[in-house]
């Protein structure tokens, strides 16, 4: 039997959860011995190459591309984990959910004090994905198996969750691991 396979994605997040994953520090050397990585922004595997045991998702869904990536993860991953506040409930980007999009649009490209006065335009191109009306948490798009809270979840929490999943044992979530800020 081969080593367990892990894949990761950052959707509408800030990459902080991926940084927290790297904050496991020296333990990454150990992880490299016991697992293999498939599709992830920290490597150059851009499409799934095999079935994946654990999928870690950072960020919610703010555009059509996020939804496609999340669905592909659900299809290929046995266990899918929402990592951090944005994946779990939209997080800070979801602050836009109560604001009409027209206002956001105008503020970013038309009202900015440094915007070019000559021709102020709003980007619109076939190569840009379609923005969703709201930022959606991952479990509203596909079924999610586990949730790790925090902004970001601490490296120790991510480590505990990943090792528990690899060893097939229940999570030991102490107060220290799940409190944040």
């Amino acid at each position, binding site marked *: 039997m081969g080593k367990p396979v892990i894949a990761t994605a950052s959707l509408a997040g*800030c*990459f902080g959860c991926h940084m927290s994953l790297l904050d496991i520090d*020296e333990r990454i050397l150990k992880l490299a011995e016991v697992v293999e*990585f498939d599709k992830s922004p920290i490597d150059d595997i851009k499409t799934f190459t095999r079935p994946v045991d654990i999928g870690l998702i950072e960020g919610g869904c703010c555009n059509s591309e996020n939804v496609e990536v999340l669905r592909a993860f659900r299809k290929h991953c046995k266990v899918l984990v929402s990592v951090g506040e944005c994946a779990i409930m939209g997080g800070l980007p979801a602050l836009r959910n109560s604001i009409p999009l027209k206002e956001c649009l105008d503020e970013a490209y038309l009202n900015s004090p440094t*915007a070019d006065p000559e021709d102020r335009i709003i*980007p619109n191109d076939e190569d840009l994905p379609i*923005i969703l*009306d709201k930022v959606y948490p991952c479990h509203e798009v596909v079924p999610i198996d586990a949730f790790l809270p925090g902004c970001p979840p601490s490296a120790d929490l991510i480590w505990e969750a990943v090792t528990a999943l690899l060893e097939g044992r229940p999570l030991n979530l102490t107060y220290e691991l799940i409190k944040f800020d």
Partner: protein
Amino acid sequence: MGRKITIEPVTRVEGHGKVTIRLDDAGKVTQSRFHIVEFRGFERFVQGRPYWEAPVLVQRLCGICPVSHHLAAAKAMDVIVGAGPGKLTATAEKMRRLMHYGQMLQSHALHFFHLASPDFLLGMDSDPALRNVIGLIALDKDLATRAVLLRKFGQEIIQATAGKKIHGTGAVPGGINKNLSPEERDRFLKGPEPLTIDRMIEWSAAAIALFRDYHAKNKDLVDGFAHFPSNHLSLVRKDGALDFYHGVLRAVDAEGRKVLNDVDYQDYIAHIGEETRSWSYMKFPYLRALGRADGWYRVGPLARLNTCDHIPSPLAQKEFEAYKAYTDGKPNNMSLHSHWARLIELLHSAEVIKELLLDKDLQGTKLVKSGRRVPEGVGLVEAPRGTLFHHYRVDENDQITMANLIVSTTHNNEPMNRAVNWVAMNVLSEKPEITEGMLNRVEVAIRAYDPCLSCATHALGVMPLEVTLEGPDGRVLQRKVR
């Protein structure tokens, strides 16, 4: 009919981007674009929030360099509470500097070792399944361990100054919320080994030696790859020294002539404009003095070592002299030299951290100041990736009414597009077969600028209500309206 190559997602960079390259029937490149495909909407949704929330809210733009946004927002709010530049207590300013240089250390180490070095140490054409940090561990476990610990040391400095490694709370309008205890200080100075500042200085110097060795063996590649002239912009200390936390704006052209000098950044709007193009959510900034066509510039390590006159720490200054001598003192316009410049900054950051750790002001107890409240403030820092601008207006109810953010990666939008185009023209155009290694070179060009695409997606911008699909002749093939 021609064809289109899409690289999506661009990997081993922070955040979400893609590249499209269009070729004609003969395989000749007709267009290349680096797109930022996502957006958030910070400028609008921070409106109405109380101003003291800004430093903790806006850092959620970016989990790699949250400290930059945390500090730029705090510096803008310092101005608003009447405690702008020069008015903070020594303890507050030095704690913030320690936090910031700790971030420089972790971010530069992360970028070079974890993200970029596989292209050099494993090779641009090596197996993409192994061309990553895990492959680096397999190749050289000692080097990978040092890389991990360098980043860890920087993250622990951030934790000691901001309370948390990612998205901390240390800086507040007018100051800081903690000092550095003697126990925390001694841990960084004395260890346990190998996590001491002296070891970090040693490893940073070794990283420069590693790059210079690679350079010596691959001169044509490192010097020639995506080499093109540009202007360069950064903050410099009033006396022209390299400074990441505070200074005045300076811009030089490709020959080293000063385009901007000694500019107070509160007046940035008079000097910087931004153009929007239809195919990217990231804007294209330019120096107003030179206009839209010629005013684009680079920021970040390459630019900073072109604008500053010297580096105020001895070991990094010595490396800087060798670096400057390589271009006869002229600005360096070679994209891959960004890595060399970044590693010199890594060493400088480690030296500054040591200097700060030895400073008794860090144990001071005067943490916060305030003065006459004003309605508007601008805060700038040199983030790891370049100059970061935060500008806010606040009303009499203490609510934010306007936010304008220009992040480091946005300034490098045009340079990154030029670098992508250089690879498209010189590596991909009119080739019988396009290999994975060739496409990786497109990403190597982007990675040299260490883009933070999460930062660059702060503008929520639009929900396109209309999507059109055009053929190569510009004819509309499909249009979707919703």
